[in-house]
């Protein structure tokens, strides 16, 4: 019986094509927006998780600045920097395997006749180098790694080499950083974000020299010994640094985060952002729903006589109600199907665009839950919006409806 009703509904919708189409457009714009935002959000989420997994759960990061300030970027602007002393102190804590500090600063770089501003990372070249390479995901693609801490040598990011300057930067080329000449020895593999992929890596000793800082560390990376609880080591670091710097609890000039905390933090911010965007998209769905309601009210009015006829030949209130509900639901569902296709297409386009501009972490992730969920949701929106009009149709008195001209 429901199948027969669906057929009746389709005949009806096909009969008033333009109006059905316009109503469907109202829905699919909203669904397309929601689907593309959710799939991109999900994709970014996965990419971030993947990066953190590569980093490993046994890592701790110490940043300057109070915990109120967010993120790695604050490292280069914090008022009170970390020092070599802090690194030493941390590396002596029980449970700490390696502690290594890096310098991370924006610098003027000249290659040929072009000048660019990029981030320069100064890393130690002793045995602690490995942890930095895992944390920062530095892998040499071409050329060789840095290994002489007193030489003016540089390893450059993937985009720095191939994309930043008019001419490709090759191992053996010479670049100028803050007025000093460096020899490019290697090129890094692509990491996936523009900031890292356009950066330059040099020895920390030389970095201190060219940036003219005696004792300043931007970030300290810590690797915990095998089998040691990461969280308790993080607490220990906090306490020791507090003592060293003579600071009160809660008013520290630094922050200590485990890789799990770091990931959680990034994900929280990401999901908040996503909720906000989806919320905005949801408003357009609401408008689409009101569109369905409007169309269905008009339809009930127009077909009053038809409803009377159907009742005269045996349709019950429930039958009439069902027919109108299915009609609204199908408008929603068709809008959902088109919206899904469009939304996925949009997300893929954004992914391609992002990849071309260097943000390869921005990937669209589409799964069956997302698709089925949004289809069910669009049907639901249709049916909910169609409910009041359907009820009005069902309640019409047959004799009265038949008299309607």
């Amino acid at each position: 019986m429901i199948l027969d009703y669906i057929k009746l509904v389709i005949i009806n919708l096909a009969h008033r094509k333009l109006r059905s189409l316009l109503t469907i457009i109202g829905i699919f714009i909203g669904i397309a927006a929601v689907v593309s935002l959710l799939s991109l959000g999900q994709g970014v989420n996965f990419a971030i998780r993947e990066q953190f997994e590569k980093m490993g759960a046994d890592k701790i990061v110490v940043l300057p600045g109070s915990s109120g300030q967010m993120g790695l970027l604050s490292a280069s602007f914090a008022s009170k920097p970390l020092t070599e002393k802090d690194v030493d102190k941390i590396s002596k804590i029980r449970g700490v395997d390696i502690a290594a500090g890096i310098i991370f600063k924006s610098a003027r770089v000249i290659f040929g006749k072009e000048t660019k501003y990029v981030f320069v990372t100064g890393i130690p070249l002793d045995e602690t180098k490995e942890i930095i390479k895992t944390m920062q995901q530095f892998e040499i693609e071409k050329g060789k790694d840095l290994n002489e801490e007193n030489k003016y040598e540089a390893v450059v990011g993937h985009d720095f080499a191939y994309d930043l300057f008019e001419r490709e930067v090759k191992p053996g080329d010479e670049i100028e950083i803050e007025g000093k000449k460096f020899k490019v020895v290697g090129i890094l593999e692509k990491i996936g974000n523009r900031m890292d992929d356009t950066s330059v890596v040099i020895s920390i000793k030389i970095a201190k020299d060219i940036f003219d800082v005696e004792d300043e560390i931007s970030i300290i990376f810590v690797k915990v010994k095998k089998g040691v609880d990461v969280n308790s080591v993080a607490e220990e670091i906090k306490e020791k640094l507090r003592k060293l710097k003579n600071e009160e609890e809660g008013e520290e000039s630094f922050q200590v985060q485990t890789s799990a905390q770091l990931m959680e933090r990034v994900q929280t911010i990401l999901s908040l952002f996503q909720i906000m965007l989806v919320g905005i998209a949801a408003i357009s769905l609401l408008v689409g729903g009101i569109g369905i309601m409007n169309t269905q009210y008009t339809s009930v009015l127009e077909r009053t006589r038809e409803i009377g006829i159907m009742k005269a030949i045996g349709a019950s209130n429930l039958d009439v109600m069902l027919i109108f509900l299915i009609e609204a639901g199908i408008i929603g569902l068709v809008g959902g199907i088109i919206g899904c296709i469009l939304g996925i297409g949009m997300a893929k386009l954004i992914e391609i665009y992002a990849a071309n501009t260097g943000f390869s972490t921005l990937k669209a992730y589409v799964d069956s839950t997302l698709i089925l969920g949004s289809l069910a949701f669009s049907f639901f929106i249709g049916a909910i919006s169609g409910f009041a009009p359907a009820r009005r149709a069902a309640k019409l008195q047959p004799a009265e409806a038949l008299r309607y001209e």
Partner: protein
Amino acid sequence: MNKPIIELENVSKIYKLGKVNVKALYNINLKIYPKEFLAIIGKSGSGKTTCLSIMGCLDLPTRGKVKLLGKDISKFDDRELSKIRGKTIGFIFQMFNLIPTLTTLENVTLPMIFQGVDKEKRIKRAKKLLKLVGLEERMNHRPMELSGGEQQRVAIARALANEPQIILADEPTGNLDTKSGKMIIDILEKINKEKGTTLVMVTHDIELASRANRIIKLEDGKIVKELKRKK
């Protein structure tokens, strides 16, 4: 004589038009028996259509009792009423009242859909009925592509879809030329005679009414005359 198939007891119908109460029907007492062909005549506004609507459960009386097949319908809920409208009664209207977006065949199968008849059976029966009214060639046409007489024949086929015991026809020839009108009445009369379906027809055409077994005349919502034809 057997029990009446339709029974109206002191039935009144009052419409409220703004502040004025309009008495469409006033204390109607009427018994209609199985296989009868009853004509209801009267001027427009005399209450004929209201009377037919109440018999057919399209409308409920303000006062009084309506019994169909011996059962008081005032106690019925919407589901039972719609079942009576769909199964026991077949309606034929002056305006044909076909669904314009559906084909002839779909229009005839529609009442069977509401009764849950399965698809194969539905189509078979609809085709048979269309053959009965001489429209088997017009199965896939839409109402707009048919003449008035043809549309009314589709409506008859639709009314017969669930093998009703009663056919209620409201001015079935009112919108038709004499020739098509005659054809419609011939078909209805044939159904009444051959299948024994009770036929109640509202008309203002005395000549048509004279073909019935019994005629009642309504005036201002009251029965003012009753005529029986001897066979």
